[in-house]
């Protein structure tokens, strides 16, 4: 399983279009994320991929072959549902061992996974007493238990503390390194941004943008902030600021205590660096790119993109 594609997927529930001709491409060794506001169709898309929801229209292709998600394929799929829950009267270890038995995994391996997700000490406690973050960790353990080649995580960061997030990041890094297909849905793009390679933004059941974080930034063209530390000599500093303001029209700038901050369009970055080059008025330079969450907000304001 190296290449997974959903093509033109439409799902209707009564009069509500959960998905409208949605497309998604996933590749082995690439961590992909889908993001979108509530009701964008993220969870439905994941459930179509798992075969939990039947599409009215559209196809699922795995390695170039059109397939229907069935029992045999699900052997290679790990799934963490949103707000995962378990039978309350079981302990963490019992939950893990049940899924281990169902998936043909040894008890020892199940115990190791439980340890990996940081639940060894809570293994004998009833799931009823688990916090949301602990249930999320247990769910993550269940999802990776059989070392699936397709890992689907629905809002995996929900309720996780820093330790839990560290476990999640290590799982994502490991699956990426091993060439497995990973897809996660999220509301919090700023949190997952450093860990994902590709992002698809959904709105009202349709993908409105898709690409690497850098591609999405370029596509949206949000201003980049450049923080410049200027020399103590006022005359040289003033001359530099004047030169910048003249060279780059419609510049948004602020100056305070020897620090000059400008917000410029990505296309003006080159002009600015030319001005800085060799200019001793600038002692320090820092580029601050817009966060993926800002890109996401901007994309949601715009009409649909290709």
């Amino acid at each position, binding site marked *: 399983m190296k290449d997974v594609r959903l093509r033109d997927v439409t799902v209707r529930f009564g009069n509500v279009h959960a998905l409208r001709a949605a497309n998604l491409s996933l590749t082995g060794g690439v961590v992909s994320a889908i993001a979108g506001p509530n009701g964008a169709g993220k969870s439905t898309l994941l459930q179509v991929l798992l075969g939990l929801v039947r599409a009215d229209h559209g196809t699922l292709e795995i390695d170039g072959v059109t397939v229907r998600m069935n029992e045999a394929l699900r052997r290679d799929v790990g799934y963490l549902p949103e707000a995962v829950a378990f*039978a309350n009267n079981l302990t963490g270890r019992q939950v893990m061992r049940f899924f281990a038995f169902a998936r043909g995994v040894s008890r020892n391996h199940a115990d190791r996974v439980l340890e990996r997700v940081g639940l060894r000490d809570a293994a004998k406690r009833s799931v009823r007493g688990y916090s949301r973050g602990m249930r999320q960790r247990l769910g993550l353990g269940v999802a990776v238990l059989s070392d699936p080649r397709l890992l689907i995580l629905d809002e995996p960061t929900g309720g996780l503390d820093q330790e839990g997030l560290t476990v999640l990041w290590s799982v994502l890094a490991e699956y990426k390194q091993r060439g497995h297909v990973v897809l996660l849905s999220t509301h919090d793009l700023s949190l997952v941004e450093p860990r994902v390679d590709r992002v698809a933004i959904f709105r009202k059941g349709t993908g409105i943008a898709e690409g690497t974080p850098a591609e999405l930034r370029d596509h949206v063209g949000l201003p980049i902030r450049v923080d410049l530390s200027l020399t103590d000599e006022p005359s040289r500093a003033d001359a530099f600021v004047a030169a910048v303001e003249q060279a780059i029209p419609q510049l948004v700038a602020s100056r305070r205590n020897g620090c000059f901050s400008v917000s410029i369009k990505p296309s003006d970055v080159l002009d600015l660096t030319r001005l800085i080059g060799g200019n001793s008025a600038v002692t320090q330079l820092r580029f601050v790119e817009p966060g993926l969450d800002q890109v996401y907000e901007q994309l949601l304001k715009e009409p649909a993109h290709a």
Partner: protein
Amino acid sequence: MPRVWLALAWHELSERARDRWVLLISFVFAGLASAVTMYSRSADGGAAQLTGPSLVTLASLLIPLIALVLGHDAIVGERERNTLGLLFSLPIGRTGVVVAKYTGRLLALTFSITLGFGLAALAASEQHRGVLSQLWWPSLLLGSAFLSLGMLISSISMRQVTAVSTVIFAWFVLVFFYDLGLLALLVGADGRVSSLTIERLVAANPAGLFRVEMMSRFTAKSTLVDLGIREQSLSRMAPLIWGLWIVMPVACSGIFLWGKKSV
């Protein structure tokens, strides 16, 4: 598939063994069955002869209730707890999940019935142990039919509270009011309803079929004849009717889930 199926059935059994409601009703059943046999043991001949019918009445009341309680949350309960998606993500089909759940819960029901009659047998005389052993298998059939009905109700209900109300309603209708309705029909029709119709109506209800089958073993044959029921005809139909009652609701449950767009 068999491994997932087995895991799921075992999971169901172990979860049900921890379910306080199932345990409570099972122990109530065991306690009442033991009380009946203990009373019969100490009573004189006349009262002792009522052991069979008393146990039949007890079983026909409580076993459907235990079975319906066991079945009512099989699907809708998982859906409300948000655990259904995780189960259906296992390498097993929707129908397979239903069958595995039914099997696990049927094992729990078997345990419950065996516990009830087993404890009663400890308190019973040698003669009454025979009565209890004759009751075990038909009681299991009765329970299987109601468990199957409970599974169907659970599959088609959107909320657990709806499933609870529906199983209680089904219990009242099939266990209490159905027979009363038939009685009213017999009296009201004043002989205009044929015995064949009566037989078919009795057999259409698993609780009625169970009572008639068991009463034919433990009471005078004339009782059934007075009600217009021919025991021979009923015993020929019984396996088919039990089979339909046990298989059809579970099958419908599986078909219903299989046909659903979303689980």
